[in-house]
């Protein structure tokens, strides 16, 4: 590390996305050459350009050490904290040797690299009631809870509200009303807190909302975007899991039915029986689902697609009707696994963020005490 810090200043070319909505002009690109040591940050490069060449460049920043979450931007198309991205790394990931810096996505631009967090991010955070709704009676002094239950929510507590996940959310891109990864991770912060009194109400609210937990497309964009390993998508999956399995919520968006359809079909066939997936997601996990009004309506609306598929020989009618199965003995084994795991009193979940890996936890081998070994060898009588 010391070597990287010792390198002398170099010239870096940066390309900034500039935009001032009040000017009436379209956004444009603005290039500058800055001179900094390679281990310095993209934020420092922007600030140098502002100080030396153009005082009107807009960027928001505060702590400059990846704690306050103010300087979220896109560097070479990927969301990042400007203060936490080294210039040499940014140069390596640039397409043409020029580091490209843009405002985050999915939020309106106020000016240049500053986006309107209030209009999107904070509004969504407020949507999930981001405070503890304490269990009664409130103890005279502090609540006493098992240590593990608080460790469980520490991952979501690591969020610094930078908006990087919101910027890249692909569901929000087509459906701006989606509550989104940051707010839903925050929701798990309280759903998973044993002191909170309203787990059911919170989950039912987020499950019934058409733009709630079942609107996430499971695309891993937020997992990749987060500079703090919060794994928002993983938290959304936990919200779904608790809503369906512990609170027995059935939502109006087919979310829980869809989950039960897939797990049920794999239990019954070993493989996914695709033709049954849509009727069961709309009508419930049974062969008769296709005769329920919601499933019938959906199948009818998909008729043009179904007919075209049949016409092209895309579906084998035998597989479409009877599904495909793994051999009976194997299916029995798969079902035995379902029975054993699902009958456990508590679900066994391994969160590597909390536990670390065996490699992380391996005892650090003691430094070979070379001098001492050498001395003893030399000093031995043999």
């Amino acid at each position, binding site marked *: 590390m010391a070597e990287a810090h010792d390198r002398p200043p170099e010239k870096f070319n940066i390309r900034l996305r500039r935009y001032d909505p009040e000017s009436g002009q379209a956004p444009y690109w603005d290039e500058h050459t800055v001179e900094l040591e390679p281990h310095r940050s993209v934020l420092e490069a922007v600030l140098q350009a502002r100080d030396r060449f153009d005082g009107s460049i807009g960027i928001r920043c505060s702590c400059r050490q990846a704690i306050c979450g103010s300087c979220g931007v896109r560097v070479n198309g990927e969301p990042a904290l400007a203060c936490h991205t080294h210039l040499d790394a940014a140069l390596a990931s640039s397409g043409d040797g020029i580091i490209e810096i843009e405002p985050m996505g999915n939020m309106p631009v106020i000016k240049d690299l500053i986006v309107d967090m209030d209009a999107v991010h904070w509004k969504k955070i407020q949507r999930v009631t981001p405070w503890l709704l304490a269990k009664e009676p409130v103890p005279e002094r502090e609540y006493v809870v098992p240590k593990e239950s608080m460790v469980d929510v520490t991952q979501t507590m690591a969020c610094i509200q930078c908006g990087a996940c919101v910027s890249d959310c692909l569901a929000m891109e087509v459906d701006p009303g989606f509550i989104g990864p940051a707010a839903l991770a925050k929701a798990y912060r309280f759903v998973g807190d044993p002191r909170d009194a309203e787990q059911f109400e919170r989950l039912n609210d987020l499950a019934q909302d058409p733009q709630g937990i079942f*609107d996430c497309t499971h695309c891993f964009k937020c997992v*990749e975007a987060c500079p703090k390993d919060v794994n928002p998508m993983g938290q959304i*999956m936990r919200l779904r899991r608790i809503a*369906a399995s512990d609170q027995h919520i059935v939502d109006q968006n087919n*979310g829980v039915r*869809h989950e039960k359809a897939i797990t049920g079909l*794999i239990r019954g066939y070993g*493989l996914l029986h*695709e033709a049954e997936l849509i009727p069961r997601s709309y009508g419930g996990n049974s062969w008769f689902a296709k005769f329920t009004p919601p499933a019938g309506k959906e199948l009818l609306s998909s008729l043009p697609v179904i007919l075209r598929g049949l016409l092209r020989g895309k579906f084998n009618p035998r597989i479409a009707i009877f599904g495909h199965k793994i051999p009976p003995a194997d299916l029995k084994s798969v079902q035995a696994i379902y029975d054993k795991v699902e009958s456990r009193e508590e679900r066994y979940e*391994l969160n590597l963020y909390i536990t670390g890996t065996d490699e992380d936890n391996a005892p650090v081998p003691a430094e070979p005490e070379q001098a001492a070994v050498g001395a003893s060898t030399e000093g031995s009588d043999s």
Partner: protein
Amino acid sequence: MKVAYWPGCVSRGFTPELHGSMAKVAPLLDIELVELDRACCTGAGVIAEHNQELADTLNARTFALAQQVDGAAMMMNICSTCQGAQSECQERLDANAEYRSHVNQTLASEGLSYESGLTNKNFLWLLVEEIGLEALNARVKRPLTNLRVGPFYGCYIVRPRKRLGIDAEHPRDDYLHQVIEALGGTVVDYAGMRKCCGFPIITMNKEASLKQAGRHLGDAANAEADCLVTPCPLCHLNLDLQQPLAEKAVGRELKMPVLHLPQLVGLALGLDPKELGMGRHVVRPTSVIDWSSSVVAAAA
């Protein structure tokens, strides 16, 4: 090379042309496929959403079956979603010996046990890392000259990077580009190539799901792609099977053919579009078939 082959469910169900074309292409690349016909669905992330240990145990069973295949160099899949779902389970199983042994206790009644460190590669990764782009290029009989191909990676095979082993030495999120070029085609870049096809929410928010598919297809059409190619059969369902509905969702005609990766490879290796099952697509790959017959005619 011999591989323990996991075709997945959809490649044998609603996209039979994928499994079929893989079977045709494998011998041309000296890949011997030993099908894991006893293994069950990976759960596509949904079983993990329901119960993580259940997903990990079912996939550990598949991994254990793969490890029993005599002489297999590794496990291979042809479904990005399977790759993503399996990689997630494998990450947990490999990370923690105590957890692995807990899962193996459930498998013990069947005499199975998963040992950490299985190599499991999507056909795309195997093409680049095991066969090699030069060797692939050397086998091309009908270069895809002037065919403009848009890569559609989807999500599960490109994110999260660390879990999927994507780094400077293994730019796996760029392999479709490299393969298209090795086959002699022209790569068409467009905005949606590493975005979500929308399939996971098709039953929950159909409008948003179809809008996602429609936008990416539209982006590719704007970039003048002749066709897309994808390593994921679930993406194929939303991009091809649902394309007539996606057209309505975005209010424009798309008519964008979407090929499975083995179909594109097979085409360049000289196979006939029909035997690669291209007639089974909802959007007829006429741009591709016309192109290939004109090339055949020119060669004749």
